[in-house]
């Protein structure tokens, strides 16, 4: 349990690209687990729900109401995508809290795949394509007016003789809006990766210190047992909050892309 191990990946080159084997294997594990869980949960759906079904219904209803409040009246159609992102990131982040450093061959299983920037970047890029897709689907080609955002407002309010001043501002606003779009993607990835990676590195370093403490003397043992509890608590909180924030921000940006009243 060392800090250097928390920051290194088991890489192999596949067809010229360096692939992080441990990230990819853990991601596939989580995907298979999600598919299995969904199959099990939807086996028998009763009108009077049992325990697990009512928990699932609570979650679905919470996300439906959240989507409706943040993305307008027809916001419920985004709920599947938002909830999938939330559950995927949540299970990814919480997987890194298992205390055992289990290794299958060279691949470490109990590590959060979101500490790798490839995972978070792919999620953010998928969200980027989601913004464009939902925008074009709802508004058609008029979604491109989004990239010159303040100008339609100016056109309505200015008198005729000042309208000549708008064309120079065209390029500026297009540039600004594109940069804002890219900054959103960058901030989504770096926020998630930084939080989870920082947590992982700090936890690994402190737990390595615990091993030293245990080796020193018997008096240090109680203090050594208490530390992982704090780390677990912090990890649970951080993981849940970051997953929630990623999904809610994606929802907010989709709502911004889809809204009618500019």
């Amino acid at each position, binding site marked *: 349990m060392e800090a250097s191990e928390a920051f290194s990946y088991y890489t192999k080159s596949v067809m010229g690209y360096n692939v992080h084997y441990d990230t990819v294997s853990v991601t596939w594990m989580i995907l298979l687990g999600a598919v299995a869980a969904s199959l099990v949960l939807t086996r028998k759906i009763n009108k009077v729900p049992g325990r697990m079904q009512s928990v699932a219904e609570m979650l679905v209803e919470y996300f439906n109401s959240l989507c409706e409040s943040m993305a307008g009246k027809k916001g419920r159609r985004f709920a599947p995508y938002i909830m999938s992102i939330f559950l995927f990131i949540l299970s990814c982040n919480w997987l890194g809290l298992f205390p055992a450093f289990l290794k299958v061959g060279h691949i470490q299983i109990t590590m959060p795949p979101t500490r790798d920037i490839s995972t978070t970047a792919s999620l953010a890029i998928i969200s980027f394509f989601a913004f464009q897709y939902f925008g074009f*689907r709802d508004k058609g080609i008029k979604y491109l007016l989004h990239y010159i955002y303040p100008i339609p407002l100016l056109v309505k309010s200015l008198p005729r003789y000042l309208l000549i001043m708008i064309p120079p501002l065209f390029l500026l606003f297009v540039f600004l809006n594109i940069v804002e779009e890219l900054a959103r993607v960058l901030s989504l990835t*770096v926020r998630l*990766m*930084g939080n989870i990676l*920082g947590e992982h590195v700090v936890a690994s370093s402190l737990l390595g210190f615990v091993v030293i403490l245990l080796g020193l003397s018997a008096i240090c043992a109680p203090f050594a047992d208490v530390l992982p509890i704090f780390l677990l608590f912090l990890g649970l909180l951080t993981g849940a*909050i970051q997953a929630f*924030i990623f999904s809610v921000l994606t929802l907010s940006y989709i709502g911004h892309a889809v809204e009618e009243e500019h």
Partner: protein
Amino acid sequence: MRKKIWVSCAIILIGLMVLGFSVQAFAKQADKAKQPAKITQNEDVASKETVNESTGTKEEAASPAAGETNAMDKQAQCPMMQGGCKGGGVGAKGLLVVISALAAALGVGIATIGPGLGQGNAVARAMEAIGRNPESQSKIMPTLLIGLAFMESLVLYALLVSLVLLFLNPFIKMV
């Protein structure tokens, strides 16, 4: 209509992947072709150095300050070390490592000042609002958390730069 959109998106994606693959393969092949040129470049640099040394020795007799040209001479002999081959030069690589470590440590440290103040301010106002109206807690909490995450990400940008400097330093290969 929806099927047409899916088909066109799939075609665009596959086209982009093929394009990226071919560009990357072309770049790799160009890289391999470039390597013999590097060796000839080194030879050119060596010939320039000998020319400089000969001009340095000619100027030594003419210039009044002999110490200056001696230093220039030493520098020309060992261009990577600062202060000549002998005599305790730090070396450009050592200097780079030291400054990278210092920058990485100071970067994150200074970057936590602003967001720390901002987050404290945000939580204080949220507490005040909840205290004034305890029923609105379920509406204030998610907004508070989103605001805190925005401020947290500013620190993470600095952390990213620090991690790159410590573990994936791109300047070490140049020196």
